[in-house]
């Protein structure tokens, strides 16, 4: 999107002498990133899809025709299109469509919760380490490196085993597995931005350290951080499914796509709908979130070029 950048600079370079009517509309980094994001059709469609998924997850109790734990022993393993069970039922006669929707809820809740946890941890540790430097940085980044060396899946397994199979444990397990790379990224960003003249200018004007970190460094680092977070969300959804596959997901009967796929595999020939729908929806969700991430990366990359 180099064209936008050049036309903008051109317009402003002429601004000094040209009529004031040329004064450009104030557009912040968010507005410009949004413009670029919107022009990427795949990303935009994916974003809409993701938005619908979130709405669906939020509205699950009203959208789902059945409760996820409601069993009907007279209608077990019914095929697609059965009246009252649009996508059929599973081994216990539970409505597959409803369980998909509630499963989406689990997936998104865990993924967003985990990434929010990871983001907060990463920002806190990366910002303090990068900005303060010295001994504090050594301690914080040493800790981060130790965590980095630890196999994250193993860590998640241990944590879920210790804390029990609750949503909270899953969020913590996945969040802790993913904050490390993000903290390193935040620190790298901060280190680079700390050298910028405007940071020194702020100090020259009497800004306090925390003010500089929060108002001058963080907003300029947020693009790349947001991009990695957006890529971490599909990874977290996959991690949750993976843990469910290992039998370490949420406690049944709370539905999880991973568990639904595992169960479905056993009846693949008799009742393929049990596995196909969760698998397809899982794949689509991962793709959509990844494409949104791609779009965000491009949107923020271009803003980097402009400086």
């Amino acid at each position: 999107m180099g064209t936008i950048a050049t036309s903008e600079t051109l317009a402003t370079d002429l601004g000094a002498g040209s009529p004031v009517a040329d004064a450009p509309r104030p557009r912040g980094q968010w507005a410009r990133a949004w413009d670029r994001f919107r022009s990427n059709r795949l990303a935009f469609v994916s974003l809409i899809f993701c938005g619908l998924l979130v709405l669906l997850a939020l509205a699950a109790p009203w959208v789902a025709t059945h409760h996820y734990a409601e069993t009907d022993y007279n209608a077990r393993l019914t095929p697609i299109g059965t009246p009252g069970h649009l996508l059929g039922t599973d081994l216990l006669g539970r409505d597959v469509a409803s369980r998909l929707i509630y499963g989406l809820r689990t997936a998104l809740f865990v993924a967003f919760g985990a990434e929010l946890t990871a983001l907060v941890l990463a920002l806190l540790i990366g910002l303090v380490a990068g900005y303060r430097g010295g001994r504090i940085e050594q301690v914080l980044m040493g800790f981060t490196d130790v965590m980095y060396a630890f196999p994250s899946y193993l860590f998640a397994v241990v944590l879920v085993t210790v804390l029990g199979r609750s949503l909270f444990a899953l969020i913590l397990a996945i969040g802790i597995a993913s904050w490390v790379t993000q903290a390193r990224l935040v620190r790298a960003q901060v280190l680079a931005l700390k050298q910028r003249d405007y940071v020194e200018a702020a100090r020259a004007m009497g800004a306090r350290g925390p003010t500089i970190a929060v108002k001058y460094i963080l907003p300029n680092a947020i693009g790349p951080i947001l991009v990695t977070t957006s890529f971490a969300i599909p990874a977290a959804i996959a991690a949750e499914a993976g843990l469910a596959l290992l039998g370490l997901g949420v406690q049944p009967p709370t539905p999880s796509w991973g568990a639904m796929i595992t169960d479905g595999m056993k009846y693949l020939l008799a009742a393929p709908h049990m596995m196909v729908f969760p698998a397809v929806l899982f794949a689509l969700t991962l793709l959509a979130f990844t494409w949104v991430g791609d779009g965000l990366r491009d949107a923020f990359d271009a803003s980097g070029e402009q400086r």
Partner: protein
Amino acid sequence: MTGPLLSVRDLRTHFVRGKETLRAVQGVSFDVEPGRALAIVGESGSGKTVTARSLLRLLPRTARIANGQAILRVPKRAGASGGHRRGSGSASDAHREVDLLALPERELRRVRGREVGMVFQNAMEAMNPTLTLERQLTEHLLWHGICGKTEARERAVRALGDVGIPEPERRIRTYPFQLSGGMRQRAMIAMAMLTEPALLIADEPTTAVDVTVQRQILDLLVEVKNRGTGIVMITHDLGVARYFCDDVVVMYAGRVVERAPTTALLDEPQHPYSVGLLGSSVELGDRARPLLPIPGSPPDLARLPSGCAFHPRCGRAELPRCQTDQDLVTLTDGRETACWKAVADA
């Protein structure tokens, strides 16, 4: 005049690089009077920028101010902790003296941006791209508790108008990258002057702008000076120094080699390095006179030659006399030079 606004004595700033100590600034002294401008000139690596940054202690972590004083006369403010009222400070006794190099960090922060403004070389780089001009310009007024948000905004609009930015009401809502280079530089000067600092440090303010804009920026700084602000101007451009600086300090390899009123220096440079600087200046030279670049390059600070650091490049050098240290010597008309031959000639 009750004394200089800023008085720097024997400033020494070192960089520690592993086991090496780089003496970037070695015993620099100068005074700045209110309403006058002092130029610090020299090649890159001469220590002029480090000198300026040392004054506000805006130095990288590896730097250490090893020695010196920088006494700044600041007006006494009502409420020392920075209340909302501004001290009038008209009487001469309404001033106090602070040593910028010894001030605790907390107090130094109150001096930065309030008593001492700073203008950077590249306004594009020196403004936060995520803040609108309004936020950019008013933040430090709020930090220092000079006024409230609405008043800060009014002041900023007025200041932008004063530096010749058209339609300031509207411009103030834009982002720095939406301004042209010249406008950005003017906006930065407006920003630095919003707190009415007594001293302005300008670090090569015209180097990064177009030649056509340079003049505007300099004229703006002349106005600032005429309002009574003392200015320290870091530059490698003697033309800039001639245009509006009253005094010039020439630095070489971390030392002051010559100090003189601008006209005296330009007419009759005493130190061979000053002569060389003038001879290699395009703007100041006669058309008929060929440009004379100084042979060689500035020395490595880690391996400085003994005595006068310039002697390996100096056409007039006489060994071994030039290999022994030579302090600044005051000549008859109040100028100073660190060349013994120049002293002998005078």
